[in-house]
């Protein structure tokens, strides 16, 4: 295979690999493709309150099961003075707080951060009991209620074709205040909620059903009581109904806390127990959300990456990862334009310094150091020093200049110039040395051309490297370096003319 074909195959492979990993990280792990994307993270707090009797206390709160469209990013418990553990009870998790003796009002907190993801909220099939306990309505005084219930059931059955439509009809009837049967039933079941009544009626119709407890995620809601949904078994699968409207399906912003009819909170050794919820929404950078959710799952791609480094090293890498971008700019300008620079990749180092110093400060400092350095270098050249000693002398001069610039500008109140320390000293010294040779050999014009070319490339590299998209992509998708490598390989194969050559050879055409 010819080297050229190999390059193309390699470049395509690298590009596909990089792009594939990027898409995977975006689609599956939720890393945002664009900077500045925010995700809403809901902080839900459950507050358990009760009055302890003075003896041993045990409070058990059912914890939410994992839900497909809600990702739990983190949870915290507060349990001052209480022993705490999480126990598995059937297929529910319960938080159990316990204490040998307690008296007075007690407050316990459970807090979790969730983030909504697209997808179906509930999993099917679910191993939930489909047995029906028919309500006992045989007593005499219940005759009227029983008749009302069966009349409702009959009416709904007439107007429906299957369990789903039956449930919808039933809920419509139960929500209709002009319906006599409904009013009679609610009159009998005083203080009972719509879902309680609906469950009784469904049981009478021998349809398996249970309640779903949960919360509507709305910002800044405090002291909420859990809300109920109705889940009905239609013979093959479970269908959720919003009881007030009769609409099937889980409402979009509903966070399911508990599925099935068991109690939400059990307190032993206490009275007046109550659980209330509060909901707050926060806008969190999408990347942080992705980091949190992947760190829970120990995703190898993230776990064995730059993100596993300490924050300080990460910020260094943020800069290092920009170097290849600068190198690409240099390659493009060299291969397609043909700009002359002093030292092939020196402009990239300059660009990195510019990132720290801001562009104009950086340019000013660079030109100042270059001019002063050249001046000193011209004097040094008259002293007949050996090259290494002379460059070392220039390095020392550069350091002194940097120090002087820092001190003087600080005294003058120009804090920006303090960033002068970010300039690579050795590179500056070599640049000065090389420039002075160019001056001697090719004249000052060539110095201006080369310094100008270097600065132009450095500014362009700086401009690309500080682009917020580029910054975002290089740090969050380091896989894109593979794509970059592919591009560089392909550019390295370009054998066409450079822009400068179109000018250089123009006389040949005429």
């Amino acid at each position: 295979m010819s080297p050229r074909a190999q390059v193309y195959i390699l470049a395509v492979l690298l590009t596909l690999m990089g792009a594939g990993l990027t898409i995977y990280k975006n689609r599956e792990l939720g890393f945002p493709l664009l900077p500045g994307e925010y995700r809403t993270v809901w902080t839900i707090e459950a507050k358990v309150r009760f009055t302890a009797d003075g003896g041993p206390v045990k409070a058990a709160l059912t914890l939410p099961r994992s839900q497909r469209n809600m990702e739990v990013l983190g949870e915290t418990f507060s349990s001052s003075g209480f022993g705490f553990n999480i126990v598995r009870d059937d297929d529910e998790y319960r938080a159990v707080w316990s204490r040998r003796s307690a008296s007075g009002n007690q407050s316990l907190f459970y807090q979790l951060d969730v983030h909504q993801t697209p997808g179906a909220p509930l999993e099917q099939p679910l191993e939930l009991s489909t047995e029906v306990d028919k309500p006992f309505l045989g007593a005499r005084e219940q005759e009227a209620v029983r008749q009302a219930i069966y009349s409702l059931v009959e009416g709904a059955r007439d107007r429906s074709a299957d369990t789903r439509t039956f449930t919808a009809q039933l809920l419509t009837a139960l929500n209709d205040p002009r319906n006599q049967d409904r009013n009679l039933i609610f009159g009998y079941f005083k203080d009972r909620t719509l879902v309680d009544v609906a469950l009784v009626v469904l049981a009478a119709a021998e349809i398996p059903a249970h309640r779903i407890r949960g919360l509507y995620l709305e910002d800044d809601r405090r002291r909420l009581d859990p809300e109920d949904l109705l889940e009905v078994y239609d013979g093959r699968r479970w269908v959720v109904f919003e009881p007030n409207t009769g609409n099937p399906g889980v409402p979009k912003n509903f966070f399911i806390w508990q599925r099935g009819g068991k109690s939400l909170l059990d307190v032993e050794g206490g009275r007046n127990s109550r659980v209330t919820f509060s909901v707050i929404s926060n806008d969190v950078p999408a990347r942080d959300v992705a980091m949190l959710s992947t760190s829970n799952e120990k995703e190898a791609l993230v776990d064995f990456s730059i993100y596993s480094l300490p924050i300080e090293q990460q910020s260094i890498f943020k800069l290092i990862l920009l170097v290849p971008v600068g190198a690409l700019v240099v390659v493009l300008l060299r291969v397609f334009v043909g700009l002359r620079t002093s030292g092939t990749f020196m402009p990239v180092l300059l660009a990195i310094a510019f990132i720290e110093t801001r562009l104009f400060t950086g340019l000013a400092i660079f030109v100042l150091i270059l001019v002063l350095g050249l001046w000193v270098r011209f004097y040094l050249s008259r002293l007949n020093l050996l090259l290494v000693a002379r460059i070392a002398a220039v390095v020392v001069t550069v350091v002194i200049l940097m120090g002087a610039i820092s001190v003087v500008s600080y005294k003058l109140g120009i804090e920006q110039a303090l960033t002068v320390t970010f300039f690579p000293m050795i590179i500056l010294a070599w640049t000065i040395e090389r420039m002075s040779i160019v001056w001697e050999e090719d004249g000052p014009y060539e110095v201006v051309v080369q310094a100008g070319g270097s600065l132009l490339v450095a500014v362009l590299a700086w401009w690309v490297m500080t682009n917020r998209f580029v910054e975002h992509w290089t740090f969050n998708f380091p896989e894109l370096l593979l794509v970059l490598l592919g591009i560089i390989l392909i550019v390295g194969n370009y054998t066409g003319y450079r822009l400068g050559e179109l000018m250089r050879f123009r006389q040949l055409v005429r």
Partner: protein
Amino acid sequence: MGRFNLNQFLAKLRGGIVSPFALRRLGVLGMNARNVHYIARYNDRDLYPVVDDKLNTKRAARRHGIRVPELIAAFDSQPSRNRVLQVIEPLWQFVIKPARGSGGKGILVVVGREGENYLKPSGAQVTKEDVLRHVSNIHSGLYSLGGKPDRVMIEALVDFDPIFDKYSFEGVPDIRVIVFRGFPVMAMLRCSTHSSDGKANLHQGAVGVGIDLATGKSCHAVQRGLRISRHPDTEMPFDELVVPGWRDLLRLASSCYEMTGLGYLGCDIVLDRKRGPLLLEANARPGLAIQVANGVGLRTRLKHIEALDLEQLEKSVEERVAYSMEAFAAPRTMEQQASA
């Protein structure tokens, strides 16, 4: 309005830029194509030391019977003051060069003496100290690629054939021949001018004179990208210029292929009054300015050689030179052009 301005801008650009298709049609070789198609393909890296170090070049040339300027001394390590002075003391004229210098950098030419001082071709004087400092600079790698420590060589000054005296201002005219797989494909004479400060680099204002491979006569001359017919300083018309002993010169260039093994090679040759053509240095990455000097693209000629069958590539130096002189003759000489 914006459209109007854009058109103006494009028209302005068009004045200075030509279409890449036009260049391709003319067979102009670009830098990228040179690097990928010719240097990378025909020049093995392990052969570079022969040409990158002029001392190695000299040694190889001696083995292959190629004439070179006489080497007076070479210093491997940092020479002591006395040692250098001892060498240059008896000399009237000499050249100090870095063995691995690039682009003609670091070459100090001394053409005479003025008391204690040495004279440069421009008439400027340099002191003994300057010469010693120059030697020290060369040794510490100031002029070599990557700043590596370098060797210093002291050569005898070539006794230039006076034929070019009127075509050169202050400096040394040399002839660059591009040799591709042993076949000379293009040649030019580089004449320094006043504006090039005695240097023979075209981008510094030296005149590039394209030389017809068949005859050794000049066929085209260019300074700073513009066609000229006379030397800007001496007013000598180029169409009278003929390189003497042209076939010998081409033979010398062509035999550099066997010497270096490099497929794509630039040979810099000077004419000595008595010894004839001498190889000054060989270059594994010859520049592209030769196309401008000749007004002809290099690519067509390189393609021509590439299309030859293996048997023809096995030819001897003599046969290759004959082939090139016939195949790459300039279509029209300058006189014909002037009369047309």
